[in-house]
């Protein structure tokens, strides 16, 4: 059985606190995880500058080449992970076993992470708007207009408190390495697999091992990363995001409340967009912040909701190894029962209708886990509480709202797909500060173009643009 131990700047640390992890469906033991407390993390963070120093020994071009090699290894090779050699199949099985995701979704996330890393040069080019990366290394340089520009790294390492639910979000910290910034990661207790395998792939590809700290542990370890690193990212609930609002040291990623907005000019043809809506709601079992949780239109909303319900309402639980499995398990059953209770509360409000009611029970309880089957809810007004809800399973509210009010009422929207040809709505949606990523046209919310800036541009987070002036010193008289 594989044992994952903490990694302290590249050196494995034999933790005395070992937890067993069992398969969510069968209860079979699959792994042992060691953890550390905040004291060890805090102590290591005093040496964080060495992580950057080790990376600075390699040029950004070299690190980009290593990253591309790492992408290939991550996706295809047998790699040393913890105390074992891990094949791709084992990785997929282990990740599925602890997260509840069907195995084909784990493979899909594996490819997504690998894709980002293999295109890291293009992504960095996009994120920096074409800046010569040597300027980031050196701290200053000539941009080409006869002006010196300077970017100052704000931290030697990027800290990250990683989530349990969605292996896809690891794409957000991957650019740190070619940017010559070390990593101090607290892996999610159910999803340590991607960070461990990715770090192994980086090291096998030639990135210095001392650039990596992996600190599985409790809140204590996460808290130490956040307080001791000048820049960290965290993934959590709306409360987590609110807690760190306005803190320049922390980039908080929470619920996405991603939405599809249908303009009055095309809403009569809503059936043309049914596939886009279904994919946006159902992909990755609805777990991602980029999954669509709200579809807004001024009319036909009941028909739209009924049509989506007809497509996703019958989706049922299948074994995790089944390639047709669309639903991920809640490995902590209480999370499913708690979520189910919250949805029942939403449904009790007047004007809210469960459009999937006829497709059977939604809460499916198993011996070691539980599932929630897809739900489509109709809200007759944006005033209904359910209009702003997001849950960790395929769940969408179809909200009836006049077009004129839509952009004022949608609230925070990580991905907004706007279906319209109306130039006024296009202009207004483009200017709407509540929408982060905006798609015009039939682009499912889950389909990201990585060659676009994505939320929380890591360059802006890790580097500061500043003035940098240089003049020659006069030659001393006795020189």
């Amino acid at each position, binding site marked *: 059985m594989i044992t994952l131990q903490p990694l302290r700047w590249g050196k494995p640390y034999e933790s*005395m*606190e070992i937890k067993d992890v069992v398969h969510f469906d069968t209860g079979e033991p699959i792994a042992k995880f060691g953890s*550390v407390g905040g*004291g*060890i993390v805090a*102590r290591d963070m*005093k040496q964080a500058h060495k992580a950057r120093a080790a990376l600075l020994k390699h040029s950004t071009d070299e690190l980009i080449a290593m990253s591309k090699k790492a992408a290939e290894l991550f996706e295809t090779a047998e790699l040393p992970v913890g105390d074992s050699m891990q094949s791709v199949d084992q990785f997929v099985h282990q990740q599925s076993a602890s997260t509840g995701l069907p195995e084909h979704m784990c493979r899909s996330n594996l490819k997504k992470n690998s894709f980002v890393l293999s295109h890291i040069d293009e992504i960095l080019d996009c994120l920096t708007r074409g800046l010569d990366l040597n300027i980031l290394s050196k701290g200053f340089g000539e941009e080409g207009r006869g002006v010196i520009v300077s970017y100052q790294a704000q931290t030697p390492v990027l800290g990250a408190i990683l989530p349990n639910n969605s292996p896809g979000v690891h794409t957000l910290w991957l650019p740190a390495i070619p940017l010559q910034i070390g990593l101090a990661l607290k892996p999610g207790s159910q999803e340590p697999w991607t960070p461990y395998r990715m770090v192994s792939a980086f090291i096998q590809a030639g990135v210095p091992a001392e650039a990596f700290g992996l600190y599985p542990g409790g809140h*204590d370890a996460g808290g130490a990363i956040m*307080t001791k690193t000048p820049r960290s990212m965290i993934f959590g609930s709306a409360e987590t995001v609110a807690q760190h609002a306005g*803190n320049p040291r922390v980039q908080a990623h929470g619920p996405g409340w991603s939405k599809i907005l249908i303009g009055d000019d095309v809403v009569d043809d809503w059936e043309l967009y049914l596939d886009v809506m279904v994919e946006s709601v159902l992909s990755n079992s609805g777990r991602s912040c980029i999954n669509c949780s709200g579809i807004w239109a001024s009319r036909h909303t009941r028909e739209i909701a009924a049509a989506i319900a007809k497509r996703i309402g019958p989706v049922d639980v299948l074994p995790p190894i089944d390639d047709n499995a669309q639903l991920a398990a809640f490995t902590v059953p209480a999370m499913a029962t708690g979520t189910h209770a919250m949805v029942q509360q939403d449904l009790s409000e007047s004007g809210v209708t469960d459009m999937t009611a006829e497709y059977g029970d939604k809460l499916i309880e198993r011996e070691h886990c539980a599932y929630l089957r897809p739900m489509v809810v109709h809200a007759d007004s944006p005033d209904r509480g359910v209009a702003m809800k997001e849950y960790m399973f395929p769940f969408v509210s179809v909200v009836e709202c006049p077009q004129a009010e839509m952009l004022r009422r949608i609230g925070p929207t990580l991905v907004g797909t706007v279906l319209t040809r109306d130039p006024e709505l296009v202009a207004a949606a483009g200017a709407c500060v509540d929408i982060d990523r905006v798609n015009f046209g039939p682009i499912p919310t889950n389909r990201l173009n990585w060659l676009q800036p994505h939320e929380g541009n890591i360059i802006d987070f890790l580097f500061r643009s500043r003035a940098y002036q240089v003049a020659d010193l006069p030659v001393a008289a006795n020189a």
Partner: protein
Amino acid sequence: MSAAQSSIPEDVAKSASDARDRLNEHTLKIVHWHFSEDTGSPFWLEKKSELGFDPLKDVKSFDDLKKFPHFEDEWLRGGPIQRWVPKGHAGKPVYVFETGGTTGIPKSRMVIEDHWKDYELFSDTLPDEHFPRGSNWLMLGPSGPRRLRLAVEHLAQHRGGICFCIDLDPRWVVKLIKKGWMEHLEEYKKHCIDQAVTVLTAGHDIKCMFATPKLLESLGEALEDRGTSLQEVGIKGIFSGGTEFTPQWTRFCVEELLGGPVEEGGVYMTPTYGNTLMGLACSKPIKAADGYKISYYAPQPRAVTEVVSFDDYNQVVGFGETGRVKLYTLTDEFFVPGFMERDEGEREAPFDMYPWDGVSGVRPFHELASATTVGVY
């Protein structure tokens, strides 16, 4: 007899038997004190009528304490506090000590001199080599209505030293955590640690200290940030407690904070386990060779800990087996015939230094763990 029991050396078994005899004798004395009309407390004298047995006649040994219903912690919330003062101690000055981080009505315990006696007994377990007599102390932990400050201060005085104290209010810490004000929490911790560093570096010849694990960790870190260490500022011995201790934390402490194992010149550190009800349980000396295992032994016969079955709180588990921690307080000031602690652990066998049951691996009771804010100070 279990395998573990049969492996107890003969001399330890004999000492354990003698200790049990002393415990039985002590139990009789204490029960008579608390249930006699002349000396008992109003609380126990009133409770006597509800018991369905006569403690004065029916308690003949420690095991007979199982006839009592479990001690309910709600009995300690709210007043009047006078109902707990034994008539036999009427007129003496009384302290009230409260539980640490509680933000509702706290559990209160009246004390006359027990905290002094507990710490004098504890003092006997401290090696003079690492806790030099006559040297000064630092108390870095909660004071306020907690007993810790007065108890540690008495310990210092009992050993001929003077105690410097830094306060930390755990109730404010609990509020900060619940509000999610983690930056404020960090600042508050820093505020406490800054004071400790100031005292330690002000020429007061402090060689010994008490600190909670988290504050000790932060203090070590702060000293390192200033280019020094606990060793370099002159600390020889530390006793630590108040929150959960793990072998891993102890190992980290020894290897990375205290300058290595004590036999190689590192600072001596002993974990303790205690509370307002029981007093202070000492740790069996911790060693790397034992995997930094931490085993606690209550100051018997004044207090007793048992590890009992999760299904039957009157059934002690076998040595090495896991159960919930149950404690008894048997002093002439306070009588607790079986209080179910919010902890679980493994039952440990007697050994030569403490020839009675101990408990190791102490951690929050699994059924309560999710509802407990652990380690607030």
